[in-house]
């Protein structure tokens, strides 16, 4: 069983459209949506939820007003400025528990917080594990780890060959959590200077964690000078550009229909994504 995670650094380069297409093309796989902040893959796969679970993670300090003597020690020690006027701001509280340990009258309790939900769903393309982080919640990295772990269990149970994970944008906590221990990263970029800048940083993260990366230049024909710049850059680093997908409105049209683009059109976009999946299959062998 092999796991490929699709990342991009910059948001909106086309990760989810490509993962949705892989869902339709690849055999013997489970899908994982690791963008738990703003999950979108379900919009292409029309999942029916089979299992819904609560995600309890992290704690929040709660001050018992009756016990509190307003000595102010908790406010002094809190490094997250989460306590003001002897009240805890649950959004700023990082759940470290420092205040509850040092409160001289034991007026502060740490309460578990419901940080989100995660789901196992059936789709016409196979199982999908996805999640929704609660509004303004922390611990997205832990929820990503949970989604990946459940996807892995399904793959092991059903003897599946692949886990295909749709990753979050950025390079921080949830990205690291999506990437660690994966077999391959596919980095989807676009030929803009912002896209190139962000590709360099996410590629740095892959190298940092020793994960092999392939690059896909999406909408490559929007600026062919920039596309050449990406190709030169990758060539210098020994990173393979595995696909160049042209710009085509069919991608958005398919999205509006709630379909992976490969199920909607037989054009060049579809052919390029199909050959990209073949290339990934070889890289994972």
């Amino acid at each position: 069983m092999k796991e490929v995670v699709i990342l991009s650094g910059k948001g909106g380069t086309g990760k989810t459209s490509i993962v949705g297409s892989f869902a339709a093309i690849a055999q013997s796989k489970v899908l994982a949506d690791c963008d738990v902040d703003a999950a979108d893959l379900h919009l292409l796969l029309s999942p029916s939820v089979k299992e819904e679970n609560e995600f309890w993670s992290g704690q929040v300090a709660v001050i018992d007003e009756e016990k509190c003597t307003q000595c102010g020690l908790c406010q002094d020690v809190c490094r997250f400025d989460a306590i003001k006027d002897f009240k805890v701001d649950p959004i700023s509280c990082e759940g470290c528990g420092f205040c509850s340990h040092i409160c001289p009258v034991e007026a502060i309790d740490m309460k578990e917080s419901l940080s989100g939900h995660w789901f196992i769903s059936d789709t016409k393309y196979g199982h999908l594990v996805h999640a929704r982080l609660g509004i303004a919640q922390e611990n997205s990295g832990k929820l990503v780890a949970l989604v990946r772990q459940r996807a892995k269990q399904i793959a092991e149970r059903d003897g599946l060959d692949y886990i295909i994970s749709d990753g979050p944008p950025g390079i921080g906590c949830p990205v690291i959590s999506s990437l660690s221990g994966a077999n391959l990263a596919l980095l989807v970029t676009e030929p803009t200077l912002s896209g190139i800048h962000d590709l360099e940083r996410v590629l740095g993260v892959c190298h940092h964690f020793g994960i092999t990366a392939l690059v896909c230049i999406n909408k490559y024909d929007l600026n062919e000078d920039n596309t050449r710049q990406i190709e030169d850059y990758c060539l210098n680093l020994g990173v393979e550009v595995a696909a160049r997908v042209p710009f085509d409105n069919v991608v958005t049209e398919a999205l509006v229909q709630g379909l992976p683009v490969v199920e909607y059109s037989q054009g060049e976009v579809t052919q390029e994504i199909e050959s990209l999946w073949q290339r990934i299959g070889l890289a994972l062998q």
Partner: protein
Amino acid sequence: MLISVASGKGGTGKTLVATSLALSLKSMYNVQLLDCDVEEPNDHVFMKPTIIRSEAVSIPVPSVDEEKCTHCGKCGEVCVYNAIAVTKQKVLIFPELCHGCGSCSYLCPEKAISEVANEIGVIETGNADGVDFIHGKLDIGQAMAPPVIRKVKEQANNEGTVIVDVPPGTSCPVVEAVKDSDFCLLVTEPTPFGLNDLVLAVETVKELDIPCGIVLNRAGVGDGKTEEYCREENLPILLTIPLNTEIASFYSRGISLIEGMPQWKSSFLELFDKIGEIVNERSSDTER
């Protein structure tokens, strides 16, 4: 006034809007642009600032004096982030998991723990053609963006006009970047992905009790459901930017919209006036 520019979904045009707003306002106001997308900062690509000052961002992580340590295990017990593990012979510290809360050093009965700075990123300050420019950059391989974002926001000039470019998503880095704003602009595109993530972003800013308005970018792609949602939720669409190959071309080359197509300046000034009206109305409501 502090205006944050957020989106939920990535790639909808936050950077385009934040830089255009800053460049449109700079001749009339004292404008500061804070790029808080510290994982993937892009404003500098368009603003080309001259960086004057660079400052490391670090968080305090524990360092154990093994001579004083009795391996009692208290530090490992109090650390909720699993950043300290105590064995019989040694204390293991995992700085990348540490949030720098300070519990372990304070609570160590032997006073064997001191704190050392662990660098996780950098903030750079400079000037871009009349705009005060500040951005943060999280170091490659580091997980925690919020401390870097916090540091960028500490530089905000509360007397002037401050534009904050927010990272995508809805979790802790977004909250850190958006909180304390007077107004939040939500940039979206009229596609099912854009709408799904806009709904999440709206819930987030409501949770923070910050007034918001919508910028509809790439109008013409997708469907009409985003506008329908905005009407139902009574969310004002303050600016519409059409899908336009010229705009996309300037963007791809790192040329700001205001530089490439100066005719857009008046639209951004109007946008700023509309924001001012909403913020003033709200503050007079609260006074009453």
